[in-house]
């Protein structure tokens, strides 16, 4: 079993004729992901990387039975691309694009309430089940198959942690990058729930950062629902209030909500082992296995 992606994934790449979309579609194919189609409006009938291109996602679903999508569409159009996946009954939509206007995501978020699609991201590296399949932009070579379920708001920090785990010989069941934007589809809770229910996952790693209160809510949920050990890490302890630290969502409000301290405390209160450094995270996990 795996979380979110696997052999049954039939992926349509939205924006497959763009340079990013094409580059990463090819990397995904190399990694073993079953890319069944691409979508670029106006390019229907073309073929790219050996798969057919359609004008709309609905066509890709109808013709190729696509059940997952990856959005590599420029930010001004990406909210609409996500909406298109939602309306095409795609089961899993992974939105890679960074810089989607928040208000576009407000509308997407409203629509998510009405459909069955799971959205991961936006502004995320994607989802990978090492050795099986990936949807996203993660460098596949750094991941190893194993029993740690990792969920993170950050891309390169995730790679850093995976690298640290790899140096200790620890692999991952699935890694979910939920994204660094203020409004995202899949939350920490959604991810932790999936790991709790995944028989291939023995330890859960939750990598948060300043801004918002998704970590605090996850802590509460973990306290009540999770039986597996959880290791936590929060980036941004030194971030000044009111400043956006790279990610659109990584900001401590002027009045001091969304701080690293608040999140670390909430996680600790929920029994999560919170590490102070990336190496510390790997050590804690190593210790638990």
């Amino acid at each position: 079993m795996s979380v979110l992606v696997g052999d049954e994934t039939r992926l349509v790449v939205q924006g497959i004729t763009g340079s990013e979309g094409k580059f990463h579609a090819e990397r995904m194919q190399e990694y073993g992901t079953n890319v069944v189609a691409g979508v670029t409006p106006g390019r229907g009938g073309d073929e790219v990387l050996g798969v057919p291109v359609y004008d709309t996602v609905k066509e890709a679903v109808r013709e190729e039975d696509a059940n997952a999508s990856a959005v590599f569409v420029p930010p001004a159009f990406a909210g609409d691309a996500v909406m298109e996946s939602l309306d095409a009954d795609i089961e899993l939509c992974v939105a890679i694009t960074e810089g989607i206007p928040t208000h576009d995501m407000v509308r997407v978020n409203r629509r998510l309430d009405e459909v069955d699609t799971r959205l991961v991201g936006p502004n995320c590296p994607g989802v990978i089940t090492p050795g099986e399949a990936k949807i996203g932009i993660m460098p596949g070579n750094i991941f190893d198959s194993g029993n740690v379920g990792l969920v993170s708001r950050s891309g390169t920090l995730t790679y850093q942690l995976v690298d640290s785990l790899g140096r200790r010989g620890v692999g991952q069941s699935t890694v979910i990058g939920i994204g660094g934007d203020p409004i995202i589809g899949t939350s920490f809770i959604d991810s932790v729930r999936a790991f709790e229910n995944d028989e291939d996952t023995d330890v859960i790693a939750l990598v948060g950062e300043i801004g918002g209160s998704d970590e605090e809510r996850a802590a509460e949920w973990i306290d009540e629902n999770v039986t597996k050990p959880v290791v936590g890490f929060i980036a941004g302890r030194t971030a000044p209030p009111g400043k956006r630290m790279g990610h659109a969502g990584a900001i401590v409000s002027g009045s001091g909500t969304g701080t690293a301290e608040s999140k670390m405390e909430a996680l600790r209160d929920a029994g999560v082992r919170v590490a102070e450094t990336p190496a510390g995270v790997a050590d804690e996990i190593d210790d638990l296995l």
Partner: protein
Amino acid sequence: MRLHEYQAKQVFADAGIPTPSSEVVETADAAREAAERIGGTVAVKAQVHVGGRGKAGGIELADDADEAHEAAEGILGMDLKGKHVEKVLVEEAVDFVDELYVGVTTDRGEGRAVAMVSSEGGVNIEEVAEENPDAIARTHVDPAYDLRPFEAREVVYGANVDRETARDVTGVLSTLYELWDERDADDAEINPLMVTEDGGVVAADAVFNIDDSALYRQEELAEMEDEAFEDDFEARASDAGFDYVRLDGNVGIIGNGAGLVMTTLDLVDHFGGSPANFLDIGGGADAERVQAALELVFEYENVDSVLFNVFGGITRCDEVAQGINDALEAFDELPEPLVVRLTGTNEEEGRELLTDRVETAEGLEEAVKRTVELSGGDGE
């Protein structure tokens, strides 16, 4: 992007919200002239992005033009919670009988706007929210229908606004929502909204923060952006496409990916150093971008050492090393020592490529410790 008070007030006034007459000036003489034109008592208000300006001495009342001159002289050039004051707003002082809070902000947790009114205006609304939550009435706005008039009324009557003022406040709240909606705002707030003796309302302050990701479709607001920057470094970083925040320390930090750079800052702090900046160079690391990042970080006079920390994923470490080497050709001499740490795909090939103009380190902790040492800290 956060607009200055005077910019926000202009936007609000254009949308029909009553604001006091005012002028923004950069010299004490101009403040005197503005006060003369406005007449009567004026407030002289520092135009910097800090909370609690009043308590910090950034707002003064002046009964006449001479006093306005004096107040402006005192405020212009002052350092307000670390912000240099370059502009003041000279504004008609409003007689008021009550102060309200009216605002629309994005609630991340709910993924939608929340419209709020409080009868306790003029104070920090987040403190009110903690200490006396019942004093704030609010509704989350369903984007499918926008803020419906009855919802605005529910909030206003829920906050126990006086009957004769309620209609005006409802209008202000609806307008703030429209501005939030149409202008891609994160926050559109008035605190305080002053209630005058005749039951009318006037926006005595104005907060308007715009989603940076949406500036491409907010031309009018984007034009205000340059003026809104208070830090030349941040303006230049924005032009270069970097995510950059200037801090007080002396360890310059460049990295790729927000989470990794934040973590690097945290580690610098953890090992006894003090970060001088946050700089996320983003995806790719060609010579041009590396050079621009190094110039920006070195130029800040605080900086004593710099850490360049990159995780090579899809972009391989050897490519990044090549970018760094090429970029270093632009520097005859590095102003301060530079530590480079490359991890990830092809990391060894990358480290081998690097010249001895830079120090290299393998582990993240090791690299941070070394950079802190070079900055004069103990690195422990």
